[in-house]
């Protein structure tokens, strides 16, 4: 049993280790979206009020916009809201969000 547990732990460590360098983590993107994005873009990404829909946007689009906002670049009428929201995102956060949004909100 001990060997299996160790093996599982090692596998988990490898999985975590590769997540940041390779495949984005959609479930991490999902929880980040729920906590930081859904209040304006809506739980289904359809947009609400004056906040735009994210449906149909591909991963590159979402990632590039988030990086622009993180850099303080003004893109569109709600830049003042997006710039501070994106300021604290890591590269991994952006990749995870882009993966989740592009796959979930078609």
């Amino acid at each position, binding site marked *: 049993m001990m060997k299996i547990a160790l093996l599982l732990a090692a596998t988990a460590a490898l999985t975590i280790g590769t997540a940041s360098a390779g495949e984005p983590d959609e479930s991490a993107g999902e929880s980040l979206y729920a906590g930081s994005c859904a209040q304006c873009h809506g739980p289904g990404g359809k947009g609400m009020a*004056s906040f735009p829909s994210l449906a149909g946007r591909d991963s590159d689009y979402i990632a590039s916009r988030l990086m622009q906002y993180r850099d303080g670049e003004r893109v569109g009428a*709600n830049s003042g809201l997006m710039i501070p929201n994106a300021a604290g995102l890591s590269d991994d956060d952006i990749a995870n969000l882009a993966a989740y949004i592009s796959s979930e909100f078609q």
Partner: protein
Amino acid sequence: MSPALTNPSAYAIIAAALIAGLPASAMAGNHAPTLSHSTVLSGLDNPWDMAFLPDGTMFYTEKCRGMSVRLPSGDVHHLLGMKDAEGYATTESDLVCQGQAGMNGVAVDPDFDDNRFVYVYSASEMSEPRTNRVLRLTVNGDFDDVSDRTDIVDDIPYKPAATDHPFGDSGAHNGGRIRFSPDDGFLYVTTGDNHNSEIPQSPTQLGGKVLRIDRDGNAAEDNAPPAGFDSRIYTYGHRNVQGLTFHPETSQPIVTEHGPWHSDEVNALVNGGNSGWDPRPNMAGRGDCPDNYCGYEPNQMEGMNPKERAAYMPLTDTNVYPNAMVPAWQNSGLSQGISGTDFLTGDQWGAWNGRLAVGFMGIGFGGTAVGQRINLLALHESGEAVTDVSEMHLPMGPARFRSVVQGPDGNLYVAVDEGEIHRISPE
């Protein structure tokens, strides 16, 4: 002296009731109610407002679609559609939506049984540039169509183009709540400043105002704005008013007003009063501002202490306007998307009987918590103070609470931008 009044606790209860500005009976249920909820309608597109008939018939608006009605049976009829909306009995293709603007408030005539009138506030491109209008419509006997459109107000300003501001798209700061006073029978109409610094204190432009008119759009005869003002103006100097109701005992109109990155307000209106919003550049210690509007200065795109903001660009500027109406409440100095409001009345609400329910949509800018919630304010009868603030435990969870209306069944109906109308019921 009666035995009851010798009891210290009875004194305490009466004193508390007096302090809170509530009738003693309101304190009889001394605990907050347990709440349940049911979803009345779902899959809506930005529901914005509701208005009820005594039998529970509910008219409601969707910002980019139009006005519909839900009958007590649960059947829904789509009555008045906007441009490109399908499935409506009648379509008016000049009615448009953009950003915060579209079809907003809805109200039922106090004499509906006789005249079948309903009213909506909507952006329209019938005029160039666009304006907001208040439309009066006649509902047919089967509640499945409307006719006789009459635009009783056609000149409420609409923000025509995007500007360099937060929420800077066209259609912004559009106001839009409409309600009939149960006391004087007039229709009150709330408007917004359009990110245009000249509008709030303008004597002629109807943005940044609360209007008081009759069912034909004529000014209430005793409106008392300053000389030279449009006679339809009841109060002025507002920023963006999206909540409106009337005190259940004094009938005083109560509004909510979005704050400028600080200080959402609840205000009790006084006829002819100035709410003290004046975001013009080069006055009151300010210099030039982005696109001639100081409404988010001194730092509109980054977080800073709301108190510093309030000192620089107050929502109610009592230095420039010493006679401005005093806000009853300022949301602890924060701006979190204050919107619809209504009083809870009836013993079913227990300790909340007489409280003002206030919905927040949430923003989350610059370190301020998003703040999606419904607060319950004990409003002093003077209208100038709030003596207690509670927060509703939300049986459906947080959402963008756009409109809150107590229905004729005594339950609270809330419309959320996510696309639902919920009924919240005390147990």
